[in-house]
């Protein structure tokens, strides 16, 4: 049993770490703009395709890991300024509908640029190493390590740097921050760019484990939504915890169920959470209820 359970558990942790990166950007944007960003999955997909493009030029995964998030961050910044900025003072549902339209256009744009077929990115680190009595792919361990490092770095950013504290202040009370002389629209745009970069990193890091195709974002965005709600909308720590919970739960459930039953089970968990405790694990009470 342990021989099956342990690798599956580790798979879950690895996937959870990637999911955490994706969900973190989503939850920050939700906290800031009150918008569930439907296009976040497409930014994740852009990360993988930007990686493929950069790798085809430079033949280096490592260059792509730096360049792809920067490219996607730039796309995110332009998108935010052009489309979301005019919506700041409107009902959040407009943002939801707006990002749905953006997702539609982005997805088709990727299909036109890169074609609809599945692509693969080869893992930059090959082979496996013995670990706790099993052999485990090195790349997945690297993925876990770098995701954990990034999550730690983000935590330090939000707690130890002035910029991070400004973003948190904007989540709390943007008007007050504006009154204190901070350029709030710029904070929003930069935060959106950062969240896009995180989605891109997640997309590129997970690409060697899964496959790359234009609708890959659609598949993962619902899971990311679930993570954000489970963790408590707008709660950063909650999202990370929930990402690992969902990653591990999904991974372990596949031992007993076929994938569609797992999907239904995850949806079931979500429905129960929304009914019983809509603010999730760590959310503030009454947010958008």
């Amino acid at each position: 049993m342990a021989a099956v359970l342990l690798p599956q558990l580790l798979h879950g942790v690895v996937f959870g770490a990637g999911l955490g990166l994706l969900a973190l950007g989503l939850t920050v944007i939700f906290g800031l703009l009150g918008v569930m960003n439907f296009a976040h999955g497409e930014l994740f997909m852009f990360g993988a395709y930007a990686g493929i493009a950069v790798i085809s030029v430079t033949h280096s995964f490592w260059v792509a890991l730096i360049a792809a998030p920067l490219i996607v961050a730039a796309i995110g910044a332009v998108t935010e300024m052009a489309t979301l900025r005019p919506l700041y003072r409107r009902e959040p549902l407009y943002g939801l509908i707006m990002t749905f339209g953006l997702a539609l256009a982005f997805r088709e744009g990727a299909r036109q640029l890169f074609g609809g077929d599945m692509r693969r990115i080869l893992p930059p680190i090959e082979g496996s190493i013995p670990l706790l009595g099993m052999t485990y792919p090195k790349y997945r361990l690297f993925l876990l390590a770098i995701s954990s490092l990034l999550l730690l770095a983000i935590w330090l950013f939000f707690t130890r740097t002035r910029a991070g504290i400004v973003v948190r202040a904007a989540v709390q009370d943007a008007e007050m921050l504006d009154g204190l002389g901070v350029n709030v629209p710029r904070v929003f745009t930069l935060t959106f760019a950062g969240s896009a970069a995180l989605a891109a990193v997640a997309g590129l890091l997970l690409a060697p484990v899964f496959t790359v195709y234009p609708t890959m974002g659609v598949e993962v965005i619902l899971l990311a939504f679930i993570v954000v709600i489970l963790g408590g909308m707008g709660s950063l720590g909650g999202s990370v915890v929930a990402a690992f919970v969902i990653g591990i739960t999904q991974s372990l459930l596949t031992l007993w169920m076929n994938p569609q039953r797992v999907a239904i089970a995850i949806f079931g968990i979500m429905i129960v959470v929304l009914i019983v405790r809509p603010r999730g694990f760590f959310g503030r009470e009454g947010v958008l209820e």
Partner: protein
Amino acid sequence: MSSLLPWKGWVVFAALAALPLTPWMTKYHMLLAFDALLFGAVAMSLDLLMGYAGLVSFGHAAFFGLGAYSTAVLLERGILSLWLCLGLAVVIVGAYAFVVGYFATARRGIYFALLTLIFAEVVYTVFRYTQAFGGSDGIQGLPSPVILPGVALDTPIRIYYAVVLYLLLAYLACRVLVRSHFGQVLVAIRENEDRARFLGYDVQRYKMGVCLISAVLTGLAGALYAGRAAYATPDLMHWSISGEFIIMVMIGGLGTLVGPIIGGAFFILLQEKVSSYVQWYSIVIGVVLVLIVLFAPHGLLGFRRGLRARPRREAAG
């Protein structure tokens, strides 16, 4: 009747009824007109929920799809009566909508949207992977349903008239509903839910009621759609279809009933026309949506008002 449908409305329906008599209506155009009017009716049903009760459902594709599967399952087994198909759709969609409505209406705003979305995804996943329903291929190659013994819904003209009749009846039903006390309470709930509750209205019952009506109307449209398309596939239930329904309502203008009908028809015609010229029509649709939200939030037709405008921070707590 004239107070429900002013003379302009009767003129429009008379024109729709006369449309097949014009020489340029080929079989292709007739079926395109069917789709345009059918999805117009779906958008109108969703508008009942979005525009009047202020509840944004991201799961209407499940109601539509369940209606389509109701027809498909019966036709596949040789039960050809359209009335039985519609009846089954009402029962199935009604039962499902009752469950979803019971849980979803206990929540507001984005939580309502997410609950309807996730319930719909469960339905989608079940149908996508159940072999009895044909899995991802769905149920294909269905015979035409029969209206009366010997009269099958098998020619474009008959199919077209069926949808015109459905649209007329559904529109009158919606119009009666929003004019009634029930409809007025819904608007009161949209404007200020707490105040409506303090006035003694059982808010959740009203919300569940409108959910049920909107869902059943959408399900009936789905049942008709399967009769015309001769298939039902899980793709009809995907959440991106729910998103398209919302787009149709937004294009037409919230809370107007007429606007979403035009929005739905416009969306179908736009999709059909653009996709016949370019492959990347999704980009056009996406950009059109973005432009509408940015520059015409009350819908292309500029009808009345959009969602209640309120300061963003208040909404985020």
